[in-house]
């Protein structure tokens, strides 16, 4: 019994790592974009686009890496579109983001049907065209140590490369934001673009670079969803993870490490809901599957409602920079 529970906990935590990966990547993307002052609701659309393109390219070429590369190119193009509307033409950032989400939602299905004739899905990929689990070095030796060994071999090890990339992206985001000149300017432009402009720095170019980085990160996140976590693209497979990532970013107060923990928490709730399906709970009985699946979203709303009031967004977030008279 005891061993059983331990196994359950370990596999839930391991699943948490897998489920959180796209959330973490998209949350970091959101941080780059919004710290520069550009609201990016199109994280969702970019994840979906990345998922579709990587699966399609991997299916045709047989290479996961080409899939990843193509996905990043396409999501960066979508970021440029968002930037063109909202940075160059001072358009409304939410409208532009929603437009991208709608375009991607439709285009992935249309192109999927046109290219693969499988009602919007891409062909199932062989393992050689996917990112497969890696085993961290020393698993055998460390694995024999109680508890620590289990954490290392069963929770931390055995994931595919992109999971580790996601966690690496957190450290990288922190370093770029707080330890580099680019990061200082990026944080400044999201707070007071006029201060940046009068310091002789181009507001537009800074913001473009920020949204392009967001494009790269969501491209990786989308690739993960379709050809690492799964083996093909299915329509609407991002399933709101871009929005959850946005919530994690806000919950994490636009800071990389707290946003990572928020992503992990949402991932954990998701992993837990899968575990809890069909489980008899004493005194309550079996909880309906739908109720469990809704749990992460309900908790998201509850948590955000109780904590988000204290979150302070970058001051110029969502405000186009126009030189006024």
């Amino acid at each position, binding site marked *: 019994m005891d061993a059983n529970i331990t196994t359950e906990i370990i596999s839930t935590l391991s699943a948490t790592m897998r489920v959180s990966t796209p959330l973490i990547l998209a949350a970091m993307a959101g941080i780059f974009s919004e710290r520069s002052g550009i609201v990016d609701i199109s994280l969702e659309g970019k994840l979906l686009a990345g998922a579709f393109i990587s699966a399609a390219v991997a299916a045709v070429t047989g290479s996961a890496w080409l899939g990843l590369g193509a996905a990043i190119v396409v999501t960066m193009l979508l970021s440029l579109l968002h930037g063109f509307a909202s940075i160059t033409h001072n358009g409304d950032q939410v409208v532009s983001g929603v437009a991208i989400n709608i375009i991607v939602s439709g285009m992935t299905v249309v192109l999927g049907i046109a290219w693969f004739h499988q009602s919007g899905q891409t062909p199932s990929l062989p393992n050689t065209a996917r990112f497969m689990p890696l085993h961290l070095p020393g698993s055998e030796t460390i694995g024999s140590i109680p508890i620590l060994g289990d954490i290392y071999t069963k929770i931390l090890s055995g994931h595919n490369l992109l999971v580790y990339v996601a966690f690496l992206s957190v450290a990288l985001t922190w370093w770029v934001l*707080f*330890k*580099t*000149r*680019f*990061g*200082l*300017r990026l*944080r*400044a432009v999201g*707070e*007071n673009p*006029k*201060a*940046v*402009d*009068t*310091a*002789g*720095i181009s507001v537009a170019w800074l913001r473009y670079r920020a949204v392009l980085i967001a494009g790269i990160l969501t491209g990786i996140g989308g690739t993960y969803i379709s050809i690492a976590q799964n083996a093909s693209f299915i329509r609407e497979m991002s399933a709101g993870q871009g929005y959850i990532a946005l919530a994690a970013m806000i919950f994490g107060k636009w800071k990389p490490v707290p946003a990572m923990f928020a992503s992990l928490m949402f991932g954990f709730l998701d992993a837990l809901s899968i575990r809890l399906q069909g489980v008899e709970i004493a005194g309550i009985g079996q909880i309906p599957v739908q109720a469990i699946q809704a749990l992460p979203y309900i908790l998201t709303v509850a948590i955000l409602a109780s904590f988000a009031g204290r979150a302070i967004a970058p*001051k110029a977030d969502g405000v186009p920079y126009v*030189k006024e*008279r």
Partner: protein
Amino acid sequence: MASTDTTSSELTLAIDLRNISKSFGTVQANKHVNLKVEAGTIHGIVGENGAGKSTLMSILYGFYEADAGEIYIFGKRTPIRNSSDAIAAGIGMVHQHFMLVENFTVLENVMLGAESGAMLGRSITDAAAELDRLEREFGLAVEKDALISDLPVGQLQRVEILKALYRGARILILDEPTGVLTPQETDQLFAILRSLREQGTTVIIITHKLREIMVLTDQVSVMRQGEIVASRVTSETSREELAELMVGRKVRMSIDKTPAQPGEALLRVENLSVHDHYGVARLDRVSLEVRAGEIVGIAGVSGNGQSELLDVLSGILPPGEGEVLINGHTVTPEHATNPEQVRSYSVAHVPEDRLKRGLVREFIAAESAILGYHNASEYNGVFLTKPSAIIDHTHHLMEAFDVRPAHPTLKSANFSGGNQQKLILAREMDPGPKVLLVGQPTRGVDIGAIEFIHKQIVAMRDEGSAVLLVSGELDELMSLADRIIVMFEGRIVGEVAASEADEKMLGLMMANAHTPTSTVSEEVPA
């Protein structure tokens, strides 16, 4: 207009603007402007709002690009397309609204855009060393690691000056630098500027305060309607001459008013406190009284509770503790009120920020002219408003208060600041309120219009209204008010009769450095 050329060709010119023109749409902000500034001097630029001073300096700093004309810096033709061109040419600017990132430290703000490398570590060490040097050289002490949001405005201005010097500025432009400072902070700023001049820096100061021009500058240029109409050596001119040059006609600098005849108290505030949502006291046990037929002025550095006081009295903000009696009606935390109800007590409110609260920029003048009174029966039919009645009323207001152009259907945003303000004053004063709350009546208003507005406020007092006046201009308070109350950090720290007040005394009270002992008590007439 005859202009005296104050420069001679032997002197080095730090700045030589030739034939600068700039238009925004149909508005020509600068017309063939020629300006020469000698190196190592303090040069003042005066003019009314909209005269084109800020536009001209923004062109010099590369914030806008001129449509035509040439810029010579230290004798060399220098095209300035953006701010980095200006910085490279040795020009630094202290903007009227500080260009600082609030959640950054002083150090981070100073080095932003002038970091010494791609990594922050080295930039921070370098910037700290350079700041120490500037501090030694110019006596500009600031706390390097303090967050901008924690510093008082006087310090923020130093940070702005340091930012410019850090970038190697040899020419420093200051746009209305004293608007937010106490008289003492202003003196400190002027001392800094003089020491900069001693070290060879050229200083240009834009202001509408003629007194500052007279005490600080070596030379002064006057702008009117986008043109430089005169340049003078400061010691050879006078306030009266400059005012006349700015407006284009003779201006009266003082207000005629008879001594106040105070009657019963129409406004009484007792132990009023208000806390913001961080729990900080914005008003701290404030008690005051305004009687019929008197003008009570509230002085203080902006942000010391004056705005909150007006908000509570006009019903926008509920009182936290204490009691307010307005024209016989009691307002307490338990019995809060709202602006509409307060108006029904015969109270009128001219808000401090006319664009945010006084009118709606996108509305036509007639719509802005009935805001707050829009539910009155004379403007409304059964379902729809009565546009003709509203327009007729606006015509009447515009005529009475000399609002120009007198077109009720013109968009509010298309009136000048002074005319917008006159329209708001007309709206609030026309019903003949018993209590008039006025915030910053002449902020950003031309000298000509100021004269008119002051006359109207005094007339209101003489008709028996109680007037509470909040103003950032000490001159205005001293000439308009009968009594002056000074606020500091939400508290009343002193009160003086306007006839006994002088600038130094008020300044010290505003900084809470001096509290007169006997003047706090009021002499109530029997």
